[in-house]
């Protein structure tokens, strides 16, 4: 038997018991009358023979008695139902209705308002009628139940719940089971005696959970000074108060959250506003039709308009309507359209915006789409003046051009003079002098290559060099590279082997030859005498791979990713002897990247493999080279 059942003596049992006792008394009385009648008629009652008496009673009188008892019980049950349904409902008087109405929501909900809700709730609960009421709510911050409102003692409000709460066990049980408890007499409280209650003079209580959805956040108690079992209607009333309390509290919390969120939004808005006002970057908001809806001060200043002048005007035609050369720039060609059509982020640094006074402004601008319900509702256009950066770029280009000339001119003299002497134009030098002149010559040549490589790389990086593509056979280029490098390989005692398959690709033949020569030259430098270098091609659906495979000492794993960086040379390589500039692989990488390909190195213990992968169109020929 559960605690709840034990604590609620059912009224029906009392009625049935009373009826049964009544029935037995009636039967005994009738039986006595019946026996007396038998005696008077001269028949001997069976009283003296207990067995026969019992038989007679069971066979003749008991069925009648049971029918009678059943009729009595049914009558009692009906009476009970009528009492509950009719009398009970009549008892829910106007006072209760008024009490429920008091648990209404107040318009202005604050912390005080929440207390007000609770106060109204406990007040309403006394309309049961009860002698007192309390609300105990779970305080997540403190991790305990708190007495949040009570009609019993105002001082107890906010204090630890057990001060005026019937029983910790009861609250916990109600919250855990989300079901009410009725204790008609605290002397028989299934949760044990509760001194706090009895000290305050309470003898009975009923508690219902305060539910937030499926979660119980506390308990509303009705308290009685005399042993009282609250009836179903009273319990329903108490539940209704608890429900309204929960609704009121949840709405209050919701409003409080909303206010906090609003405050945060306002703060954020304020911060964003000050950022937008203080940034030197021009930031504009555009609506779906590309009209200005917002212009920050920097944007207005850079464009020479006032914020009011721009708002509502079409952005493209107002500040972007002409190209750099002044020719019309149709809105249909504006890259910003991509943002409006696809939501893509667009960044450009090669276009100008037009100042109000008609002069072009060098800017880097970007357009970012604003989405509303999945569709592009507008865009944020941000831009900054890059005139300075452009000027620096021009200066750099100029410097590169001047430096190349200024460095090459003295180099031409040095290299020329040394070349003539070393070439024996002026006769034979003593052996030591000859060696020195050759060293000087070698280094002059190296310096020349370094200057060339540096300028080459710089031009490629800045996109100043274009590929001169034509349909060429990669196998032919590999053959050429081998021919070029043959003397160096022979001198080093290294063999070169070609395993190429013919494949025609759109390539810049000179650049690709430069790359392959570079890789073969590197391979020779790091190959031991007697070693072999293999140049092999491999074809797949989408690309052609050309690998240069050596049998050298390999590349440490941690350096594999670095060797394509500028001036990175594998340690311990004698660069002055190898004559490398440290730029060969960096240049190779740029060339391959310009072709839309990839280059990488692999090395496992002994030997290295450098591979170039070049994309190839679907239909290209094959065949042995």
């Amino acid at each position, binding site marked *: 038997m559960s605690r709840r059942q034990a604590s609620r003596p059912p009224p029906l049992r009392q009625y049935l018991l009373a009826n049964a006792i009544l029935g037995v008394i009636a039967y005994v009385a009738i039986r006595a009358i019946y026996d007396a009648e038998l005696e008077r008629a001269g028949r001997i009652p069976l009283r003296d023979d207990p067995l026969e008496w019992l038989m007679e009673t069971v066979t003749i009188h008991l069925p009648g008695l049971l029918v009678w008892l059943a009729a009595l019980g049914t009558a009692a049950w009906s009476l009970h139902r009528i009492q509950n349904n009719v009398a009970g409902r009549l008892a829910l008087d106007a006072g209760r209705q008024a009490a429920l109405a008091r648990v209404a929501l107040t318009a202005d909900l604050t912390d005080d308002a929440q207390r007000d809700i609770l106060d109204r709730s406990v007040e309403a609960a006394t309309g049961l009628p009860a002698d007192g009421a309390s609300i105990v709510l779970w305080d997540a911050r403190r991790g305990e139940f708190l007495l949040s409102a009570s009609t019993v003692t105002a001082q107890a409000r906010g204090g630890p719940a057990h001060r005026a709460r019937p029983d910790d066990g009861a609250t916990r049980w109600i919250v855990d089971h989300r079901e009410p408890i009725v204790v008609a007499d605290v002397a028989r409280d299934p949760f044990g005696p509760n001194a706090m209650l009895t000290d305050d003079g309470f003898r009975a209580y009923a508690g219902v959970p305060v539910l937030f959805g499926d979660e119980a956040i506390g308990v509303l108690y009705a308290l009685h000074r005399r042993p009282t079992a609250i009836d179903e209607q009273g319990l329903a009333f108490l539940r209704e108060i608890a429900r309204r309390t929960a609704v009121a509290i949840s709405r209050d919390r919701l409003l409080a959250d909303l206010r906090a969120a609003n405050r945060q939004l306002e703060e954020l808005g304020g911060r964003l506003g000050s950022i937008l006002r203080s940034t030197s970057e021009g930031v504009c908001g555009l609506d779906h039709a590309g009209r200005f809806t917002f212009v920050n001060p920097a944007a207005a200043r850079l464009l020479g308009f006032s914020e009011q002048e721009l708002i509502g005007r079409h952005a493209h035609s107002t500040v972007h309507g002409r190209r750099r050369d002044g020719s019309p720039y149709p809105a249909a060609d504006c890259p910003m359209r991509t943002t409006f059509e696809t939501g893509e982020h667009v960044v450009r640094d090669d276009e100008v915006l037009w100042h109000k006074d008609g002069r072009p402004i060098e800017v880097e601008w970007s357009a970012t789409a604003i989405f509303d319900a999945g569709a592009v509702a507008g865009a944020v256009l941000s831009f900054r003046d890059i005139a300075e950066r452009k000027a620096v770029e021009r200066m750099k280009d100029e410097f590169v*051009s001047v430096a*190349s*000339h200024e460095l*090459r*001119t*003295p*180099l*031409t*003299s*040095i*290299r*020329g*003079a040394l*070349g*003539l002497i070393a*070439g024996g*134009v002026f006769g034979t030098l003593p052996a030591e002098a000859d060696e020195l002149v050759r060293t000087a010559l070698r280094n*002059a040549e190296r310096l*020349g290559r370094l200057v*060339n490589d540096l*300028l080459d790389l710089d*031009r490629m990086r800045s996109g*100043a*060099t*274009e590929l001169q593509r034509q349909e060429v056979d990669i196998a032919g280029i590999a053959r050429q590279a081998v021919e070029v490098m043959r003397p160096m390989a022979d001198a080093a005692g290294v063999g070169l082997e070609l395993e190429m398959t013919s494949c025609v690709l759109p390539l810049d033949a000179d650049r690709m030859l430069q790359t392959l020569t570079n890789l073969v030259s590197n391979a020779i430098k790091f190959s031991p005498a007697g070693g072999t270098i293999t140049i092999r091609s491999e074809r797949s659906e989408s690309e052609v791979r050309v690998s240069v495979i050596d049998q050298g000492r390999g590349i440490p794993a941690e350096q594999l990713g670095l060797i394509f960086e500028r001036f990175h040379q594998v340690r311990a390589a004698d660069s002055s002897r190898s004559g490398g500039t440290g730029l060969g692989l960096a240049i190779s990488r740029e060339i391959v990247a310009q072709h839309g390909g990839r280059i990488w190195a692999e090395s496992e213990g002994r030997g290295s493999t450098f591979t170039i992968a070049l994309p190839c169109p679907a239909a290209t020929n094959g065949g042995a080279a």
Partner: protein
Amino acid sequence: MNRHRVLIVDDESDIRSIARLALERVGGWQVFTAASGLEGVEIAVREQPEAILLDGAMPGMDGLATLRELREREETRHIPVVFITASVQAAQQRVFRSAGARAILAKPFDPMTLAAEVAAALGWKE
């Protein structure tokens, strides 16, 4: 070996002398030199060399202007011009070619092979 007659135009005296040595000693050619475009045109008119080796960047009348001047004049119009330039930028090279340069050689050059390279560029049989 043919004793070709060529004119070197370069504002750098060091380079003039290196190129002269390279072409005279290695190539066995006859070499005239000029220190400016103006002087170059003058000598070209007077000496009628078989070819002119022109520096790209010179103060005053630069390589391109000199080439145009040579093309303007009746007396020098037919003389092939080879640029020897420190600028290897493709755009610049295209400009030289479209102005009528027969070949473009890069600085620094190898003095031991310069004559052969010029001869090859001009289609001379050595």
